[in-house]
Protein backbone atom coordinates (compact mmCIF):
# COMPACT_ATOMS: atom_id res chain seq x y z
CA UNK A 1 0.00 0.00 0.00
CA UNK A 2 2.86 2.36 0.91
CA UNK A 3 4.50 1.61 -2.40
CA UNK A 4 1.26 2.42 -4.29
CA UNK A 5 0.92 5.64 -2.35
CA UNK A 6 4.54 6.57 -3.12
CA UNK A 7 4.08 5.90 -6.83
CA UNK A 8 0.83 7.85 -6.82
CA UNK A 9 2.51 10.77 -5.08
CA UNK A 10 5.37 10.66 -7.55
CA UNK A 11 2.93 10.68 -10.47
CA UNK A 12 1.11 13.64 -8.97
CA UNK A 13 4.35 15.56 -8.59
CA UNK A 14 5.33 14.70 -12.15
CA UNK A 15 1.90 15.77 -13.36
CA UNK A 16 2.01 19.04 -11.46
CA UNK A 17 5.41 19.85 -12.84
CA UNK A 18 4.80 18.59 -16.34
CA UNK A 19 4.07 22.04 -17.73
CA UNK A 20 7.22 23.42 -16.11
CA UNK A 21 9.41 20.93 -17.90
CA UNK A 22 7.82 21.00 -21.34
CA UNK A 23 7.98 23.50 -24.13
CA UNK A 24 4.65 25.22 -24.68
CA UNK A 25 2.43 23.90 -27.45
CA UNK A 26 1.64 27.48 -28.44
CA UNK A 27 2.99 30.85 -27.39
CA UNK A 28 2.62 34.52 -28.19
CA UNK A 29 3.17 38.04 -26.95
CA UNK A 30 0.52 40.57 -25.96
CA UNK A 31 0.38 44.15 -27.22
CA UNK A 32 2.05 45.30 -24.01
CA UNK A 33 4.78 42.64 -24.13
CA UNK A 34 3.42 39.95 -21.78
CA UNK A 35 4.20 36.39 -22.77
CA UNK A 36 1.39 33.88 -23.24
CA UNK A 37 2.32 30.20 -23.03
CA UNK A 38 -0.16 27.42 -23.70
CA UNK A 39 0.42 23.87 -22.52
CA UNK A 40 -2.14 21.47 -23.97
CA UNK A 41 -3.27 18.29 -22.25
CA UNK A 42 -3.65 16.95 -25.80
CA UNK A 43 -0.17 17.25 -27.23
CA UNK A 44 0.57 17.48 -30.07
CA UNK A 45 -2.62 19.38 -30.81
CA UNK A 46 -5.02 17.49 -33.05
CA UNK A 47 -8.61 17.71 -34.27
CA UNK A 48 -11.91 16.37 -32.94
CA UNK A 49 -10.96 15.80 -29.28
CA UNK A 50 -12.18 18.06 -26.52
CA UNK A 51 -9.46 18.81 -24.00
CA UNK A 52 -8.03 21.40 -21.59
CA UNK A 53 -5.14 23.82 -21.69
CA UNK A 54 -2.91 25.28 -19.01
CA UNK A 55 -2.40 28.94 -19.85
CA UNK A 56 0.54 30.80 -18.33
CA UNK A 57 0.99 34.55 -18.48
CA UNK A 58 4.46 35.91 -17.78
CA UNK A 59 5.71 39.47 -17.41
CA UNK A 60 8.87 40.78 -19.05
CA UNK A 61 10.95 39.33 -16.19
CA UNK A 62 9.45 35.89 -16.67
CA UNK A 63 7.34 36.10 -13.52
CA UNK A 64 3.84 34.60 -13.54
CA UNK A 65 1.02 37.10 -13.36
CA UNK A 66 -2.30 36.99 -11.57
CA UNK A 67 -4.95 38.32 -13.92
CA UNK A 68 -8.29 39.91 -13.34
CA UNK A 69 -9.73 38.31 -16.46
CA UNK A 70 -8.69 35.90 -19.18
CA UNK A 71 -10.75 34.94 -22.23
CA UNK A 72 -9.72 33.01 -25.30
CA UNK A 73 -11.50 33.07 -28.65
CA UNK A 74 -10.48 31.45 -31.90
CA UNK A 75 -11.42 30.77 -35.45
CA UNK A 76 -10.38 30.09 -39.02
CA UNK A 77 -10.15 33.39 -40.93
CA UNK A 78 -10.18 31.59 -44.29
CA UNK A 79 -13.51 29.95 -43.52
CA UNK A 80 -15.01 32.83 -41.56
CA UNK A 81 -16.04 30.76 -38.57
CA UNK A 82 -15.04 30.37 -34.95
CA UNK A 83 -14.09 27.51 -32.71
CA UNK A 84 -16.71 24.78 -32.40
CA UNK A 85 -16.69 25.27 -28.61
CA UNK A 86 -16.47 28.22 -26.25
CA UNK A 87 -13.58 27.39 -23.92
CA UNK A 88 -13.60 28.98 -20.47
CA UNK A 89 -11.08 29.52 -17.72
CA UNK A 90 -12.55 27.54 -14.83
CA UNK A 91 -9.84 27.80 -12.18
CA UNK A 92 -6.33 28.96 -11.37
CA UNK A 93 -4.03 26.04 -10.68
CA UNK A 94 -1.62 25.82 -7.76
CA UNK A 95 1.38 26.51 -9.98
CA UNK A 96 -0.15 29.77 -11.21
CA UNK A 97 -1.38 28.52 -14.58
CA UNK A 98 -4.98 29.10 -15.61
CA UNK A 99 -7.02 26.02 -16.53
CA UNK A 100 -8.89 26.54 -19.80
CA UNK A 101 -11.52 23.83 -20.35
CA UNK A 102 -13.54 22.93 -23.43
CA UNK A 103 -11.00 23.36 -26.24
CA UNK A 104 -11.68 21.50 -29.46
CA UNK A 105 -10.64 22.03 -33.06
CA UNK A 106 -12.67 20.48 -35.83
CA UNK A 107 -10.68 21.27 -38.97
CA UNK A 108 -7.12 21.05 -40.15
CA UNK A 109 -5.62 24.26 -41.45
CA UNK A 110 -4.84 27.78 -40.30
CA UNK A 111 -6.27 28.85 -36.93
CA UNK A 112 -6.05 32.16 -35.14
CA UNK A 113 -6.45 32.57 -31.39
CA UNK A 114 -7.30 35.81 -29.68
CA UNK A 115 -6.22 35.95 -26.03
CA UNK A 116 -7.86 38.79 -24.16
CA UNK A 117 -6.72 39.51 -20.64
CA UNK A 118 -7.00 42.17 -18.01
CA UNK A 119 -4.06 42.84 -15.70
CA UNK A 120 -3.69 45.73 -13.23
CA UNK A 121 -6.84 47.28 -14.68
CA UNK A 122 -5.46 47.34 -18.21
CA UNK A 123 -6.87 45.29 -21.08
CA UNK A 124 -4.34 43.52 -23.25
CA UNK A 125 -4.53 41.18 -26.27
CA UNK A 126 -2.35 38.59 -27.95
CA UNK A 127 -2.98 37.02 -31.35
CA UNK A 128 -1.54 33.56 -31.97
CA UNK A 129 -1.59 32.09 -35.47
CA UNK A 130 -0.84 28.44 -36.09
CA UNK A 131 -1.44 25.62 -38.54
CA UNK A 132 -3.10 22.46 -37.33
CA UNK A 133 -2.25 19.28 -39.22
Amino acid at each position, binding site marked *: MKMIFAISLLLNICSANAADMLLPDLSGVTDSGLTVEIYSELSPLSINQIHSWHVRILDRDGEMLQLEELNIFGGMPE*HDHGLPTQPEVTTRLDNGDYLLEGVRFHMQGHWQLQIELQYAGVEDTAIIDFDLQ
Partner: protein
Amino acid sequence: MKKDLLLPIFASIALIAAVGWNYLSIPGVPDWSEEELKLIASLSLDSLPPLPLDPSNLVADEPAAVEFGHRLYFDTRLSSNAQVACATCHKPELMFTDGLALAVGVGIGPMHTPSLVGLAYSPWFYWDGRKDSQWAQALAPLEAKHEHATDRVQLLRLISNDAVYRGMYENVFGALSLPAMLPQSGTPDGDAQQQASWKALEPETQIDISRFFTNLGKAIAAFERKILPGRTRFDDYATAIVKNSDEENTLNNSEKSGLKLFIGKGQCVTCHNGPLFTNHEFHNTGVLAAGRQMPSMGRYDGVRTSQEDPFNCLGEFSDASAGECTELRFARDANDLVGALKTPTLRNISLTAPYMHGGQMSDLAQVVNHYNKPPSSMLSHNEAKPLGLRTVEKIQLEDFLKTLTAPLLIEQKWLVAPDY
Protein backbone atom coordinates in the same frame (compact mmCIF):
# COMPACT_ATOMS: atom_id res chain seq x y z
CA MET B 1 -4.45 28.76 -96.90
CA LYS B 2 -7.66 30.54 -97.52
CA LYS B 3 -8.63 33.05 -94.88
CA ASP B 4 -12.16 31.69 -94.56
CA LEU B 5 -10.74 28.33 -93.39
CA LEU B 6 -8.81 29.82 -90.47
CA LEU B 7 -11.81 30.49 -88.26
CA PRO B 8 -13.23 26.92 -88.39
CA ILE B 9 -9.73 25.49 -87.80
CA PHE B 10 -9.10 27.69 -84.77
CA ALA B 11 -12.60 26.96 -83.46
CA SER B 12 -12.01 23.21 -83.82
CA ILE B 13 -8.69 23.44 -82.00
CA ALA B 14 -10.28 25.45 -79.21
CA LEU B 15 -13.12 22.94 -78.92
CA ILE B 16 -10.72 19.97 -78.79
CA ALA B 17 -8.59 21.76 -76.20
CA ALA B 18 -11.63 22.55 -74.05
CA VAL B 19 -12.92 18.97 -74.21
CA GLY B 20 -9.44 17.64 -73.50
CA TRP B 21 -8.95 19.96 -70.55
CA ASN B 22 -12.24 18.89 -69.03
CA TYR B 23 -12.15 15.17 -69.71
CA LEU B 24 -8.54 14.01 -70.07
CA SER B 25 -6.94 12.88 -66.85
CA ILE B 26 -3.32 13.55 -66.12
CA PRO B 27 -1.59 10.24 -66.81
CA GLY B 28 0.26 8.39 -64.08
CA VAL B 29 -0.36 7.47 -60.48
CA PRO B 30 -0.30 10.24 -57.86
CA ASP B 31 2.82 10.57 -55.77
CA TRP B 32 2.08 11.14 -52.12
CA SER B 33 3.92 13.73 -50.07
CA GLU B 34 4.61 13.15 -46.38
CA GLU B 35 1.82 15.55 -45.53
CA GLU B 36 -0.63 13.73 -47.80
CA LEU B 37 0.35 10.36 -46.34
CA LYS B 38 -0.40 11.70 -42.86
CA LEU B 39 -3.80 12.92 -44.01
CA ILE B 40 -4.60 9.62 -45.68
CA ALA B 41 -3.59 7.73 -42.54
CA SER B 42 -5.82 9.99 -40.46
CA LEU B 43 -8.81 8.97 -42.60
CA SER B 44 -8.20 5.25 -42.30
CA LEU B 45 -10.12 3.00 -39.92
CA ASP B 46 -6.69 2.14 -38.51
CA SER B 47 -6.87 5.58 -36.88
CA LEU B 48 -10.30 5.04 -35.34
CA PRO B 49 -9.93 5.13 -31.55
CA PRO B 50 -11.84 2.70 -29.33
CA LEU B 51 -15.52 3.47 -28.94
CA PRO B 52 -15.77 6.36 -26.47
CA LEU B 53 -17.59 5.71 -23.23
CA ASP B 54 -20.92 7.42 -22.69
CA PRO B 55 -20.86 8.45 -19.02
CA SER B 56 -24.43 9.70 -19.32
CA ASN B 57 -25.60 6.12 -20.00
CA LEU B 58 -24.54 3.56 -17.39
CA VAL B 59 -25.91 0.66 -19.44
CA ALA B 60 -24.36 1.77 -22.73
CA ASP B 61 -22.19 -1.33 -22.97
CA GLU B 62 -24.27 -3.87 -21.05
CA PRO B 63 -25.14 -6.89 -23.21
CA ALA B 64 -28.62 -7.19 -21.65
CA ALA B 65 -29.31 -3.54 -22.58
CA VAL B 66 -28.12 -4.19 -26.14
CA GLU B 67 -30.54 -7.14 -26.44
CA PHE B 68 -33.38 -5.04 -25.06
CA GLY B 69 -32.54 -2.09 -27.29
CA HIS B 70 -32.30 -4.31 -30.35
CA ARG B 71 -35.81 -5.61 -29.69
CA LEU B 72 -37.17 -2.10 -29.20
CA TYR B 73 -35.41 -0.84 -32.33
CA PHE B 74 -37.29 -3.16 -34.69
CA ASP B 75 -40.68 -3.14 -32.93
CA THR B 76 -43.44 -1.30 -34.79
CA ARG B 77 -45.68 -1.46 -31.71
CA LEU B 78 -43.69 1.54 -30.51
CA SER B 79 -45.85 3.78 -32.68
CA SER B 80 -49.39 5.12 -32.80
CA ASN B 81 -50.31 3.14 -35.94
CA ALA B 82 -48.26 0.03 -35.09
CA GLN B 83 -46.38 0.44 -38.37
CA VAL B 84 -43.33 2.53 -37.46
CA ALA B 85 -40.16 1.33 -35.76
CA CYS B 86 -36.74 2.96 -35.56
CA ALA B 87 -35.82 0.53 -38.36
CA THR B 88 -38.54 1.97 -40.60
CA CYS B 89 -36.37 5.00 -41.36
CA HIS B 90 -32.97 3.69 -40.28
CA LYS B 91 -32.94 0.54 -42.40
CA PRO B 92 -29.96 -1.78 -41.87
CA GLU B 93 -29.87 -2.72 -45.57
CA LEU B 94 -29.41 0.97 -46.51
CA MET B 95 -26.69 1.64 -43.97
CA PHE B 96 -29.37 2.76 -41.52
CA THR B 97 -30.94 5.33 -43.86
CA ASP B 98 -34.20 5.06 -45.83
CA GLY B 99 -33.51 6.04 -49.43
CA LEU B 100 -36.07 8.85 -49.21
CA ALA B 101 -35.60 12.60 -49.47
CA LEU B 102 -37.60 13.24 -46.29
CA ALA B 103 -38.24 10.79 -43.49
CA VAL B 104 -41.64 9.07 -43.53
CA GLY B 105 -42.98 7.75 -40.26
CA VAL B 106 -46.58 8.23 -39.17
CA GLY B 107 -46.30 11.44 -41.20
CA ILE B 108 -43.66 13.12 -43.36
CA GLY B 109 -40.85 14.79 -41.48
CA PRO B 110 -38.99 17.98 -42.38
CA MET B 111 -35.53 16.42 -42.67
CA HIS B 112 -33.64 13.65 -44.44
CA THR B 113 -32.85 10.52 -42.39
CA PRO B 114 -29.14 10.47 -41.51
CA SER B 115 -27.14 7.25 -41.21
CA LEU B 116 -26.51 5.81 -37.75
CA VAL B 117 -23.18 4.24 -38.72
CA GLY B 118 -20.43 5.21 -36.28
CA LEU B 119 -22.72 7.73 -34.60
CA ALA B 120 -21.60 6.69 -31.13
CA TYR B 121 -18.43 8.69 -31.80
CA SER B 122 -20.38 11.91 -32.21
CA PRO B 123 -20.91 14.39 -29.38
CA TRP B 124 -24.02 15.83 -31.06
CA PHE B 125 -27.10 14.39 -32.75
CA TYR B 126 -29.64 15.53 -35.35
CA TRP B 127 -28.75 17.79 -38.26
CA ASP B 128 -28.81 20.78 -35.91
CA GLY B 129 -27.21 19.04 -32.92
CA ARG B 130 -30.16 19.59 -30.60
CA LYS B 131 -29.40 16.42 -28.64
CA ASP B 132 -26.15 15.64 -26.86
CA SER B 133 -26.39 11.87 -26.41
CA GLN B 134 -27.48 8.91 -28.43
CA TRP B 135 -30.07 7.96 -25.81
CA ALA B 136 -31.57 11.44 -25.64
CA GLN B 137 -31.78 11.43 -29.45
CA ALA B 138 -33.53 8.04 -29.45
CA LEU B 139 -36.33 9.40 -27.24
CA ALA B 140 -37.42 12.28 -29.44
CA PRO B 141 -38.75 10.31 -32.47
CA LEU B 142 -40.89 8.15 -30.19
CA GLU B 143 -43.01 11.18 -29.29
CA ALA B 144 -42.67 13.19 -32.51
CA LYS B 145 -45.97 13.46 -34.42
CA HIS B 146 -44.45 12.68 -37.81
CA GLU B 147 -42.37 9.77 -36.55
CA HIS B 148 -43.62 7.21 -34.01
CA ALA B 149 -46.32 9.53 -32.58
CA THR B 150 -46.61 7.60 -29.35
CA ASP B 151 -45.78 8.90 -25.86
CA ARG B 152 -44.06 7.84 -22.66
CA VAL B 153 -47.25 6.81 -20.87
CA GLN B 154 -48.38 4.62 -23.78
CA LEU B 155 -44.92 3.08 -23.85
CA LEU B 156 -45.06 2.37 -20.13
CA ARG B 157 -48.32 0.55 -20.69
CA LEU B 158 -46.85 -1.44 -23.58
CA ILE B 159 -43.66 -2.51 -21.80
CA SER B 160 -45.32 -3.31 -18.49
CA ASN B 161 -48.02 -5.43 -20.13
CA ASP B 162 -45.61 -7.43 -22.29
CA ALA B 163 -44.01 -10.20 -20.20
CA VAL B 164 -40.90 -10.44 -22.39
CA TYR B 165 -40.32 -6.70 -22.44
CA ARG B 166 -41.02 -6.33 -18.74
CA GLY B 167 -38.50 -9.06 -17.94
CA MET B 168 -35.87 -7.51 -20.18
CA TYR B 169 -36.47 -4.04 -18.74
CA GLU B 170 -36.29 -5.19 -15.12
CA ASN B 171 -33.19 -7.26 -15.82
CA VAL B 172 -31.35 -4.09 -16.85
CA PHE B 173 -32.99 -1.30 -14.87
CA GLY B 174 -34.62 -2.96 -11.87
CA ALA B 175 -38.27 -3.25 -10.83
CA LEU B 176 -40.76 -1.36 -12.96
CA SER B 177 -43.16 0.50 -10.72
CA LEU B 178 -46.52 1.63 -12.01
CA PRO B 179 -48.61 4.41 -10.49
CA ALA B 180 -52.04 3.45 -9.15
CA MET B 181 -53.83 5.63 -11.68
CA LEU B 182 -52.19 5.63 -15.10
CA PRO B 183 -53.87 7.51 -17.95
CA GLN B 184 -54.08 6.05 -21.45
CA SER B 185 -51.49 8.50 -22.74
CA GLY B 186 -49.51 11.52 -21.64
CA THR B 187 -46.41 13.56 -22.24
CA PRO B 188 -45.39 17.17 -21.53
CA ASP B 189 -44.54 17.58 -25.23
CA GLY B 190 -47.72 16.23 -26.86
CA ASP B 191 -51.07 17.64 -27.94
CA ALA B 192 -53.49 19.32 -25.55
CA GLN B 193 -55.00 16.04 -24.36
CA GLN B 194 -51.62 14.41 -23.77
CA GLN B 195 -50.42 17.47 -21.90
CA ALA B 196 -53.57 17.61 -19.77
CA SER B 197 -53.17 13.94 -18.80
CA TRP B 198 -49.56 14.59 -17.98
CA LYS B 199 -50.28 17.60 -15.82
CA ALA B 200 -52.82 15.60 -13.81
CA LEU B 201 -50.04 13.26 -12.64
CA GLU B 202 -48.15 13.85 -9.40
CA PRO B 203 -44.71 15.40 -9.96
CA GLU B 204 -42.98 12.30 -8.52
CA THR B 205 -44.96 10.10 -10.90
CA GLN B 206 -43.99 12.30 -13.83
CA ILE B 207 -40.34 11.87 -12.90
CA ASP B 208 -40.70 8.09 -12.53
CA ILE B 209 -42.35 7.82 -15.95
CA SER B 210 -39.76 10.07 -17.58
CA ARG B 211 -37.03 7.96 -16.00
CA PHE B 212 -38.65 4.84 -17.44
CA PHE B 213 -38.82 6.60 -20.82
CA THR B 214 -35.17 7.58 -20.49
CA ASN B 215 -34.24 3.96 -19.88
CA LEU B 216 -35.82 2.93 -23.18
CA GLY B 217 -33.60 5.47 -24.91
CA LYS B 218 -30.55 4.18 -23.08
CA ALA B 219 -31.28 0.61 -24.18
CA ILE B 220 -31.82 1.68 -27.82
CA ALA B 221 -28.57 3.64 -27.67
CA ALA B 222 -26.76 0.58 -26.28
CA PHE B 223 -27.85 -1.30 -29.41
CA GLU B 224 -27.01 1.58 -31.75
CA ARG B 225 -23.46 1.71 -30.40
CA LYS B 226 -22.96 -1.62 -32.16
CA ILE B 227 -23.46 -0.01 -35.59
CA LEU B 228 -19.88 0.49 -36.70
CA PRO B 229 -18.32 0.84 -40.15
CA GLY B 230 -16.50 -1.99 -41.86
CA ARG B 231 -13.15 -1.94 -43.58
CA THR B 232 -13.28 -0.56 -47.13
CA ARG B 233 -11.02 -0.70 -50.18
CA PHE B 234 -9.83 2.78 -49.21
CA ASP B 235 -8.75 1.55 -45.76
CA ASP B 236 -6.77 -1.29 -47.31
CA TYR B 237 -5.09 1.15 -49.70
CA ALA B 238 -4.30 3.58 -46.87
CA THR B 239 -2.72 0.83 -44.80
CA ALA B 240 -0.69 -0.34 -47.79
CA ILE B 241 0.75 3.04 -48.75
CA VAL B 242 1.41 4.15 -45.16
CA LYS B 243 3.33 0.92 -44.53
CA ASN B 244 4.93 1.27 -47.94
CA SER B 245 3.88 -2.25 -48.77
CA ASP B 246 2.71 -3.54 -52.13
CA GLU B 247 -0.51 -1.64 -52.71
CA GLU B 248 -1.52 -3.81 -55.66
CA ASN B 249 -4.78 -2.71 -57.22
CA THR B 250 -6.67 -1.83 -54.07
CA LEU B 251 -7.67 1.42 -55.76
CA ASN B 252 -7.55 2.12 -59.48
CA ASN B 253 -5.89 5.22 -60.90
CA SER B 254 -9.09 7.22 -61.11
CA GLU B 255 -9.90 6.45 -57.47
CA LYS B 256 -6.37 7.40 -56.38
CA SER B 257 -6.66 10.67 -58.27
CA GLY B 258 -10.00 11.22 -56.56
CA LEU B 259 -8.37 10.65 -53.18
CA LYS B 260 -5.73 13.24 -54.04
CA LEU B 261 -8.49 15.70 -54.90
CA PHE B 262 -10.39 14.80 -51.73
CA ILE B 263 -7.47 15.78 -49.51
CA GLY B 264 -6.28 18.62 -51.75
CA LYS B 265 -7.95 20.72 -54.39
CA GLY B 266 -11.43 19.47 -53.51
CA GLN B 267 -11.04 20.57 -49.86
CA CYS B 268 -13.47 17.84 -48.82
CA VAL B 269 -11.20 16.76 -45.98
CA THR B 270 -11.62 20.14 -44.33
CA CYS B 271 -14.92 19.00 -42.80
CA HIS B 272 -15.06 15.31 -43.76
CA ASN B 273 -12.02 14.51 -41.69
CA GLY B 274 -10.95 11.70 -39.37
CA PRO B 275 -11.62 7.99 -39.86
CA LEU B 276 -15.38 8.51 -39.96
CA PHE B 277 -15.05 11.19 -42.64
CA THR B 278 -16.83 13.71 -40.45
CA ASN B 279 -15.77 16.24 -37.82
CA HIS B 280 -19.21 15.81 -36.17
CA GLU B 281 -19.57 19.58 -36.43
CA PHE B 282 -21.85 22.11 -38.08
CA HIS B 283 -21.26 24.07 -41.27
CA ASN B 284 -23.23 26.29 -43.58
CA THR B 285 -22.45 25.14 -47.11
CA GLY B 286 -25.26 26.95 -48.90
CA VAL B 287 -27.52 23.96 -49.48
CA LEU B 288 -30.96 25.26 -50.38
CA ALA B 289 -33.86 24.53 -48.03
CA ALA B 290 -35.89 21.43 -48.73
CA GLY B 291 -38.94 22.07 -50.93
CA ARG B 292 -41.57 24.43 -49.50
CA GLN B 293 -39.64 24.84 -46.26
CA MET B 294 -38.09 27.88 -44.68
CA PRO B 295 -34.30 27.49 -44.42
CA SER B 296 -33.24 25.86 -41.18
CA MET B 297 -31.56 28.00 -38.53
CA GLY B 298 -29.40 24.93 -37.95
CA ARG B 299 -26.95 24.79 -35.10
CA TYR B 300 -27.85 28.34 -34.02
CA ASP B 301 -31.16 26.96 -32.72
CA GLY B 302 -29.86 23.47 -32.05
CA VAL B 303 -27.32 24.50 -29.45
CA ARG B 304 -29.94 26.42 -27.45
CA THR B 305 -32.40 23.53 -27.65
CA SER B 306 -29.75 21.14 -26.36
CA GLN B 307 -28.97 23.43 -23.44
CA GLU B 308 -32.64 23.53 -22.43
CA ASP B 309 -33.29 19.83 -23.00
CA PRO B 310 -34.36 18.04 -19.78
CA PHE B 311 -32.69 14.91 -21.18
CA ASN B 312 -29.29 16.51 -21.71
CA CYS B 313 -26.03 15.45 -20.09
CA LEU B 314 -26.48 17.84 -17.16
CA GLY B 315 -30.12 16.89 -16.54
CA GLU B 316 -31.55 14.66 -13.81
CA PHE B 317 -31.98 11.69 -16.17
CA SER B 318 -28.31 11.60 -17.15
CA ASP B 319 -25.86 9.31 -15.34
CA ALA B 320 -22.93 11.67 -15.90
CA SER B 321 -21.36 14.09 -13.45
CA ALA B 322 -21.20 17.74 -14.51
CA GLY B 323 -17.46 17.37 -15.08
CA GLU B 324 -18.15 14.70 -17.69
CA CYS B 325 -20.44 16.96 -19.73
CA THR B 326 -17.70 19.02 -21.34
CA GLU B 327 -19.26 19.23 -24.80
CA LEU B 328 -22.50 20.64 -23.42
CA ARG B 329 -20.87 22.93 -20.85
CA PHE B 330 -18.60 24.50 -23.42
CA ALA B 331 -20.93 24.43 -26.42
CA ARG B 332 -20.62 27.57 -28.48
CA ASP B 333 -23.58 29.80 -29.26
CA ALA B 334 -22.80 32.39 -31.93
CA ASN B 335 -24.27 34.07 -34.99
CA ASP B 336 -21.95 32.28 -37.41
CA LEU B 337 -23.87 29.08 -36.61
CA VAL B 338 -27.00 30.32 -38.39
CA GLY B 339 -27.83 27.78 -41.09
CA ALA B 340 -24.99 25.47 -40.03
CA LEU B 341 -25.88 21.79 -40.26
CA LYS B 342 -24.05 18.65 -39.25
CA THR B 343 -21.34 17.14 -41.42
CA PRO B 344 -22.50 13.59 -42.25
CA THR B 345 -20.16 10.63 -42.47
CA LEU B 346 -19.09 9.70 -46.00
CA ARG B 347 -18.59 6.06 -45.14
CA ASN B 348 -20.99 3.94 -47.22
CA ILE B 349 -22.03 7.08 -49.09
CA SER B 350 -22.83 5.15 -52.28
CA LEU B 351 -25.67 3.39 -50.41
CA THR B 352 -27.19 6.40 -48.66
CA ALA B 353 -28.66 8.54 -51.46
CA PRO B 354 -30.30 10.99 -51.63
CA TYR B 355 -28.03 13.51 -49.97
CA MET B 356 -28.06 16.63 -47.79
CA HIS B 357 -30.32 17.55 -44.89
CA GLY B 358 -33.46 17.58 -47.01
CA GLY B 359 -32.42 14.88 -49.46
CA GLN B 360 -32.22 17.67 -52.04
CA MET B 361 -29.57 15.98 -54.19
CA SER B 362 -30.29 12.61 -55.75
CA ASP B 363 -26.74 11.55 -56.62
CA LEU B 364 -23.10 12.21 -55.85
CA ALA B 365 -22.59 14.12 -59.11
CA GLN B 366 -25.02 16.77 -57.89
CA VAL B 367 -23.22 16.97 -54.55
CA VAL B 368 -19.82 17.42 -56.20
CA ASN B 369 -21.27 20.04 -58.56
CA HIS B 370 -22.72 21.90 -55.57
CA TYR B 371 -19.35 22.15 -53.86
CA ASN B 372 -17.57 22.95 -57.12
CA LYS B 373 -19.73 26.05 -57.54
CA PRO B 374 -21.22 26.77 -54.11
CA PRO B 375 -24.19 29.12 -54.27
CA SER B 376 -24.93 31.95 -51.88
CA SER B 377 -26.50 30.72 -48.69
CA MET B 378 -30.19 31.43 -48.05
CA LEU B 379 -29.25 32.31 -44.47
CA SER B 380 -25.97 33.78 -43.29
CA HIS B 381 -22.83 32.92 -45.27
CA ASN B 382 -21.64 29.89 -47.21
CA GLU B 383 -18.33 28.62 -45.84
CA ALA B 384 -17.54 26.66 -49.02
CA LYS B 385 -15.38 28.28 -51.70
CA PRO B 386 -15.43 27.54 -55.47
CA LEU B 387 -13.14 24.62 -56.33
CA GLY B 388 -12.61 24.92 -60.08
CA LEU B 389 -12.71 21.17 -60.63
CA ARG B 390 -12.55 19.93 -64.20
CA THR B 391 -15.16 17.42 -65.39
CA VAL B 392 -12.69 14.55 -65.18
CA GLU B 393 -11.74 15.58 -61.67
CA LYS B 394 -15.37 15.54 -60.56
CA ILE B 395 -15.65 12.00 -61.93
CA GLN B 396 -12.47 10.99 -60.10
CA LEU B 397 -13.77 12.44 -56.87
CA GLU B 398 -16.98 10.46 -57.26
CA ASP B 399 -14.98 7.32 -58.03
CA PHE B 400 -13.03 7.79 -54.81
CA LEU B 401 -16.18 8.36 -52.74
CA LYS B 402 -17.52 5.04 -53.98
CA THR B 403 -14.54 3.23 -52.44
CA LEU B 404 -15.81 4.13 -48.95
CA THR B 405 -18.52 1.46 -48.88
CA ALA B 406 -18.18 -1.90 -47.14
CA PRO B 407 -20.31 -4.26 -45.03
CA LEU B 408 -20.67 -3.07 -41.45
CA LEU B 409 -18.54 -4.34 -38.61
CA ILE B 410 -21.44 -5.85 -36.75
CA GLU B 411 -22.78 -9.34 -36.15
CA GLN B 412 -25.51 -10.28 -38.63
CA LYS B 413 -28.00 -11.01 -35.84
CA TRP B 414 -28.16 -7.32 -34.95
CA LEU B 415 -29.14 -6.36 -38.50
CA VAL B 416 -32.42 -8.22 -38.49
CA ALA B 417 -35.48 -8.05 -36.27
CA PRO B 418 -35.64 -10.55 -33.41
CA ASP B 419 -38.56 -12.98 -33.13
CA TYR B 420 -41.40 -11.24 -31.34
